[in-house]
């Protein structure tokens, strides 16, 4: 079965309406909380049991994250949703926002209750005008039914949620850059510690989760943590939305159980475009190292399996690549992206991303030198772990992946001044 969690309204008419959401059980967890049938400890226990891991890329257990928030500390606390969705290949949060906005609203309200936060911000990337309008409409509906706002459903629980729009910067998907941006500044990541749970938006304790993470919570509480866990596999609970793009017949989002074989997912997406041969897959967004076809065809889609194979499940963005693609070109486009998006704060990332991009482009232009390959690998290695945020690693890992799996294509191009694939 597919579309059981975040996409469960998808087949209904006007899936984004309150009516559609309530018809599948929506807002029943919030109602239980208000009725005193579900307290914050029980919620965290269920989340821990569910093995829900952060859907934004890092895969950190959500229940554990929520338990770190100092809920009894006096003063304002915030819950923030990361709907910046900038990792190339990823397009799932846009569809949650457009097609099931109420589930995100309920998830955030529950988070607000658990962490004693009365204000939430949903930070959407700047280009998300259509999702923004849907979210605003849904908030209006929720407010009119007193599901959001002051004294929710007559209780003393108050939670106000605001939609925010960014300005176009991949780095603002990094949670501390997002916080800076929300404060009206340049999106430059902060040093950690202190972590957002202690020092977040406006210097107050803040919980940041991805859209899909928050939106999974209501379904988990309705059906129980064990149900969610059983959908996936141990340590990889639940379903996950995979954004499948590239050379498949039917690109799109597929919400399926974690642990589903990759070859089944490929089939759901209609198989390879025009019957071409699969060459490789980028399994978790542009930051995740590329894996060759023969490796991918044996893998299941979950954090542990993809990790063990030397890549990452990341945001669940699966880019399918056929035999016509030149890996040097793909590496050059990847390197260019990180060069464009480095915020410039840390020198290894600022200088390293530009250097990598220039060298790969030089190879493409037929000016490569044999030593470039080892130098690229070394520079990528020198960026990793030496920056304030993980953009440095995100830039370096895919380049190392291209070199590890397709070194021969780089060597060929340097020697023959033309692509091994395209001639």
């Amino acid at each position, binding site marked *: 079965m597919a579309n059981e969690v975040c996409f469960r309204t998808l087949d209904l008419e006007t899936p984004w309406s309150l009516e559609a959401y309530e018809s599948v059980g929506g807002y029943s967890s919030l109602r239980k909380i208000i009725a005193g049938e579900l307290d914050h400890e029980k919620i965290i226990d269920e989340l821990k049991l569910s093995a829900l891991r952060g859907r934004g890329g890092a895969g950190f257990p959500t229940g554990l994250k929520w338990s770190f928030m100092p809920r009894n500390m006096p003063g*304002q606390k915030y819950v923030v949703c990361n709907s910046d*969705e*900038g*990792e*190339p*290949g*990823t*397009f799932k*949060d*846009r569809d949650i926002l457009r097609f099931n906005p109420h589930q995100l609203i309920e998830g955030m309200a529950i988070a607000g209750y658990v962490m004693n936060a009365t204000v939430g*911000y949903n930070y959407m*990337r*700047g*280009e*998300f*005008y*259509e999702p923004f309008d849907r979210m605003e409409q849904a908030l209006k509906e929720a407010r009119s039914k007193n599901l959001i706002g002051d004294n929710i459903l007559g209780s003393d629980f108050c939670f106000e949620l*605001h939609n*925010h*729009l*960014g*300005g*176009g*910067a*991949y780095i603002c998907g990094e949670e501390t850059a997002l916080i800076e*941006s*929300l*404060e*009206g*500044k*340049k*999106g430059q990541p902060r040093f950690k510690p202190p972590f957002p749970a202690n020092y977040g938006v*406006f210097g107050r304790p803040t919980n940041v989760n991805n859209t899909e993470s928050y939106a999974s919570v209501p379904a988990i509480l309705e059906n129980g943590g064990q149900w969610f866990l059983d959908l996936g596999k141990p340590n990889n609970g639940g379903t996950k939305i995979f*954004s*499948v*793009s*590239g*050379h498949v017949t039917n*690109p*799109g*989002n597929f919400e399926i159980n974690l642990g589903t074989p990759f070859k089944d997912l490929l089939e759901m997406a209609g198989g390879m475009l025009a019957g071409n041969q699969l060459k490789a897959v*980028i399994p978790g967004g*542009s930051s995740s190292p590329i894996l060759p076809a023969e490796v991918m065809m044996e893998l299941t889609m979950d954090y542990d399996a993809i990790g063990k194979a030397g890549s990452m499940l990341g945001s669940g*963005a699966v*880019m399918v*690549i056929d035999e016509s*693609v030149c890996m040097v070109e*793909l590496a050059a*486009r*990847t390197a260019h*992206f990180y060069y*464009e*998006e480095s915020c410039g704060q840390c020198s290894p990332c600022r200088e390293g991303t530009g250097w990598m991009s220039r060298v790969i482009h030089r190879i493409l232009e037929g000016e490569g030198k044999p030593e470039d390959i080892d130098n690229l690998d070394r520079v990528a290695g020198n960026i990793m772990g030496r920056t304030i945020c993980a953009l440095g690693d995100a830039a370096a890992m895919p380049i190392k992946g291209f070199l590890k799996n397709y070194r021969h294509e780089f060597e060929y191009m340097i020697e023959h001044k033309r692509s091994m694939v395209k001639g």
Partner: protein
Amino acid sequence: MTDLNYDKSLHLKELIPQSAIDEIEQWILKYPAERKRPPIMPALKVVQEHNGNYLTTEMMQAVAEYLDVPHVAVYEVATFYTMFNLNEMGKHVLSVCTNLSCSLRGSDKVVEHLQNRLNIKLGETTKDGVFTIKEVECMAACGGAPMLEVDKVYHENLTEEKIDKILSDIAAQHMPAKEEDNNGK
């Protein structure tokens, strides 16, 4: 002589209509009252929209005065984020994604077609000031690759015919009145 009591919000009010000021005021309500910077980004977006897709120094200063923040706080934001344009733009901005998924599905052909049809290069504006084309990074619509954004709207699964339709629809909006009459038959 400097009037120390002059109303610092006046400048912006002269530059954009009251409806746009109201929009900015709506945004201001979303953030803690004692925080002055969070509305900078939304305010700049509103102002940019009312100024044909780009910002001038005067407008950035007016925003700073309106929100009572240092000018530099506004410049910093305007220069950091790619959605703010500090140079004149066309009436319609066509942003073509050329990132991985779009390039796998032929964004290079989209760029080529646009450049040929409009006779400009990426980053340029047509002589009549109607179209600007630019290259952008992944827009989170990779399932509909190749894609482009026209002003605020995404267009996905592009083909040459779809692109031609987008261009002719926009061109029709900007046809001088006389020609429109002729076309109306």
